């Protein structure tokens, strides 16, 4: 695929939970937390559009996209739970600087930020397709089981983002707003491709087959010509100032603290001794 330095890595779907080496498990957990956090935080932001999107249809569509992304977060969090993590450890009581999502997904929307939502979902959903495709032949069988389902669901998201890009780009004022959103978001979108501290082991264990560098290249080859085709100017990726917060290493923009406080507030305030259970459970 990319002329592999991972040629000796375990074969596709050849590893189950009991086959993981200690290093392999640490790398797998890092990979899953990174995937899950991107999905969860992206979805969390998208829900802010409910009742505010410009049309009823787009309101429902974006809510559905958010629901899908929460579903995908759950796919990856489920695997972490099988590795011994509780839901609280994964989400509600996970320290904010342990979250390794890209800074793109935590950025707040401006008051008139529909163009921001369109640009953001487009940049994110193309990236998500590329990284899911790089996981199709992952060595970890329980992960391989889930990738196809998520990939199939992503297709609608890109269609939605592209249809809105096209609509907004045909109007001068709307295109200016798209451009402003792109200038603002693009440096943060690049953090999608920053390596985390376990990247070498992720590749060596065959957990992901593609390097982040080649995935980033594929992403740029897709989004840059598309955006330029809509009359937008894409910042030169190697010349922009990198934001100080890198996301993947647990450093985040100020907006993250507020968002984290908001979505964990109920869990903190309810403070139940014992989580609510469904009828029949533990009967």
């Amino acid at each position, binding site marked *: 695929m990319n002329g592999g330095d991972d040629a000796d890595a375990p074969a596709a779907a050849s590893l189950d939970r009991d086959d993981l080496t200690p290093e392999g498990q640490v790398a797998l957990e890092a990979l899953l937390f990174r995937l899950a956090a991107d999905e969860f935080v992206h979805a969390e932001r998208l829900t802010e559009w409910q009742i505010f999107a410009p049309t009823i249809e787009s309101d429902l569509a974006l809510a*559905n996209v958010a*629901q*899908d*992304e*929460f*579903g*995908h977060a*759950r*796919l990856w969090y*489920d695997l972490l739970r099988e590795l011994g993590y509780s839901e609280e450890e994964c989400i509600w009581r996970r320290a904010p600087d342990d979250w390794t999502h890209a800074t793109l997904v935590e950025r707040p929307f401006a008051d008139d930020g529909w163009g921001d939502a369109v640009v953001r979902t487009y940049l994110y959903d193309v990236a998500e397709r590329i990284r899911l495709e790089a996981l199709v032949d992952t060595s970890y069988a329980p992960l*391989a*089981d*889930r990738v*196809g*389902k*998520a990939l*199939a*669901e992503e*297709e609608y998201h890109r269609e939605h983002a592209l249809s809105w890009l096209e609509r907004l780009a045909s109007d001068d004022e709307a295109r200016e707003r798209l451009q402003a959103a792109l200038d603002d978001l693009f440096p943060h979108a690049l953090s999608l491709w920053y390596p985390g501290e376990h990247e070498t082991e992720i590749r060596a264990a065959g957990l992901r087959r593609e390097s982040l560098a080649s995935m980033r290249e594929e992403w740029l080859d897709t989004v840059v010509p598309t955006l330029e085709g809509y009359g937008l100017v894409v910042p030169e990726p190697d010349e922009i100032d990198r934001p100080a917060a890198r996301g993947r290493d647990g450093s985040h923009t100020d907006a993250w603290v507020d968002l984290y406080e908001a979505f964990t507030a109920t869990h903190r305030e309810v403070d139940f001794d014992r989580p609510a259970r*469904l*009828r*029949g*459970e533990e*009967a």
Partner: protein
Amino acid sequence: MPTNMPTDVPGGSGGDAADDTDPPSDPEACTYTAYEDGEALVEYPETGADATGVEADVWAALSEVEDPEMPVGVVDLGLIYDVAVDEDGRCEIEMTLTYTGCPARDVITNDVRCAAETAPGVGSAEVRLRYSPEWTVAMVTDAGREALREFGLSV
């Protein structure tokens, strides 16, 4: 259309239909058999028609479980992929969901587990979610299609 009925999922309608019409390249070969690993592909939906003993009882119990959002059984929807009961009465059920964001997930998996535990010979049951093969409308049984049509969905 409810969001959990993606009738137009890629490759969704028909699944293996192409296999029915493409002549096998080797006249001796069966198109339903993956010879490279020597195993016949399992056909979906699984309905437990061939199950015996305690496992048949579990399938019967599961056939009573309805989807919380629609008046159709989870077996007829094709959500149940496998039922296995070991000699100590431990039951393991593999099932899928129509889509990953399904908000009824906990209700469905809990209903399935509780139903399995009502089968005589089952001491405890566990449900494990699987997403391969991906669920499509092609996995709904004829009875399930009938129920969905009565409910007002075009399938």
